[in-house]
């Protein structure tokens, strides 16, 4: 068997791509892990400050956004299932086969567009929330205040908002990249491009799920403390 430039078998490419993304996500998990460590550190030292600060995040928008992202993950999973029909097959080429592939491409495109649209909806809601946070003075620095609460904010409140902005900010950057990637695949799928292949859709979906999982952890940490009782 010669080693010169033969295309690798489909199964190996699939395995390679997926494994590569899992390793990348492990790295990403540690990237956010540093922030979760800082949060843990701050919350154990200044629990009251963190609780007081967390009461001022917008729990309504946060909850809606959680629902939006979870729904988007459902649709990206549907896209993965639909893309399975695009595996290389032994079926004889012909009109029936072409029609089958076209319908698969169309389903992939629709599911990806819905996912990306939900991602954009999340970003719009997040933007509205950021504006409101800004007007409420929830920005660490000299003018930091907790909405219209009188007096100096308790110790730890500023650190909470540093983490709030950095964590949600980095999450937003990741989500924006995800929307871009899914949009590219959606365009490709609606044009029935050859490069829209199951391994790539799988990898993009894995990334999307990761962004979703990060939010599932951020939501209780940033929106729920200090609101019970």
């Amino acid at each position, binding site marked *: 068997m010669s080693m010169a430039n033969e295309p690798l078998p489909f199964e190996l490419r699939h395995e390679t791509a997926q494994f590569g993304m899992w390793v990348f996500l492990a790295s990403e998990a540690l990237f956010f892990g540093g922030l979760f460590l800082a949060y843990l550190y701050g919350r154990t030292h200044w629990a009251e400050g963190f609780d007081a600060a967390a009461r001022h995040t917008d729990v309504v928008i946060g909850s809606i956004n959680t629902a939006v992202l979870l729904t988007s993950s459902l649709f990206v999973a549907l896209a993965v299932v639909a893309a399975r029909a695009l595996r290389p097959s032994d079926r004889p080429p012909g009109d029936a086969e072409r029609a089958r592939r076209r319908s698969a491409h169309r389903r992939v495109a629709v599911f990806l567009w819905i996912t990306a649209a939900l991602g954009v909806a999340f970003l719009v809601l997040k933007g509205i929330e950021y504006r409101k946070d800004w007007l409420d003075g929830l920005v660490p*620095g000299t003018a930091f205040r907790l909405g219209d609460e009188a007096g100096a904010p308790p110790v730890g409140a500023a650190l909470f908002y*540093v983490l709030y902005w950095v964590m949600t900010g980095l999450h937003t950057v990741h989500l924006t990249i995800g929307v871009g990637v899914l949009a590219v695949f959606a365009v490709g799928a609606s044009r029935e491009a050859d490069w829209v292949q199951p391994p790539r859709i799988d990898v993009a979906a894995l990334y999307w799920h990761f962004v979703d999982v990060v939010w599932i952890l951020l939501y209780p940490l940033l929106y729920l403390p200090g609101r019970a009782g």
Partner: protein
Amino acid sequence: MNTVTVDRGPAPPAPPPQSAGPSYLDDGHTLASWFATHDHKRIAILYAIAITAFFAIGGIAAAMMRIELATPAGDFVSDDTYAKLFTAHGVIMVWLFLIPSIPSAFGNFLVPLMIGARDLAFPRLNLGSWYLYVVGGAIVLASLFLGGLDTGWTFYTPYSTMFSNGWVVVALTGVVVVGFSSILTGLNFIVTVHTRRVPGLGWFRLPLFVWAIYATSLILVLATPVLAITLILLAAERLFQIGIFDPAHGGDPLLFQHMFWFYSHPAVYVMVLPAMGVVSEIVPCFARRRIFGYRFMAYALLAIAAIGFLVWGHHMFVSGQSPTAGMVFSMLSFLVAVPSAIKVFNWTATLYKGSIRFDAPMLYALGFVGLFTIGGMTGLFVAALAADVHLTDTYFVISHFHYIMVGGSVLAYFGALHFWWPKITGRMYPEIWARMAAGLVFFGFNLTFFPQYLLGYEGMPRRYHAYVPEFQALNVLSSAGASILAIGYLLPLFYLAWSLRAGARAGPNPWQATGLEWQTSSPPPTENFASLPAAPDDVYGYTPRLGRSPLHVDGE
């Protein structure tokens, strides 16, 4: 330079390469064929060139420090310049030389060859990693040319965020970019070793160099992102004057140290594990013995990588962490000495009843074993809580980690350079000159750094450009050693360049070594192997079987 090819007796079965394409060096001569290449071997060369340039710059900074320290008075450079020099030296040597040196240059070249693969799993990503590395390196250099920074390579807060006037954020940006290059390189190696091994090449048939690169990659992928987020937080604190690490603004400086060392201690193992891999290839080959305790060697690499994640607090014994934390970190630090010692014992045991030749790669490898042992043993001194109170921030610490990083990693880098030079270039280097350079490096290194143990023990603090006259004698010895070390570093530049044109042809396997990389022509063809190589039964099959004459029948 009459006999440069070495006859080492019967070779392991090495089928002559059949109708291979052009060697990777002849496969295109345009700039684009290099700067847009996806060939792991060419990318390795690109790394080697960039790494050598950064090594030279970091070395110049060190040379200026040693000139300043030749006299007690601070007369050659100002205190501020001195601080910028040791920062530049640290940042460049850690992130632009040591971390990428063996993995990115030799790992890139050798891992696919050693596992019988055509290339890494993600060739384009590999090239992208190189560009990230170069861009990050350029940003770091820019921060130096703009005026430098004086924080030390550790960027300790709140000095780095609230007080330093240097170009901190620019340097941080460069380091983060280089960090992403590390992550992607590590990812590429992990996936490659998992998915691209030639059929029949099980995990416990892999060369230990591949194991070492694999263990290193795990650290790169799991520790580097923590550095990235730490430095991003540091930049945020400095740019927006918000409190994360600065106590005056409601932050906590200890948090920075925890997060920084969570990366930076494992990073030490990023520097030394690949070096251990190199030594594990060289020692069996030049002793004509199977590596002693192969499985233990592989497990020890993984154990060092794993335990290395749990010892970061030993950098903070005097920083104000709780005594309990100090004790736990101290014990864990002692624990990491166990797998390290296993490796030293096993290299030594490999030599037993071996038939040893002292070619240049072997000189470097043996130098590594000795110097790593000294560096490791003094590591136990500083891992002990009470002793560390005395030794913290003295030249003892400087000497300890230079024994690991220079005595260990740099010697192994040069060992690898000589061992695989025939494979990479197809030419032999001049042995006499190489042995002389190895001797100079070993002697110069010890003369530079052994006096620093004594200085540190006597209490000379690090990071000062002036010192009391009592310390001068040892400092003069150290500076003299540094000049010898510099000659040892410069020599290979000349004779290796000479060998590219005038060196003897190496042939596929000049060392009669057993690894798969020696079963293809030198330099290898672009597709690595003319036909799919067979997985070797025993990757260290040097030891003669019972009842046979020893494999080692030396020369004529």
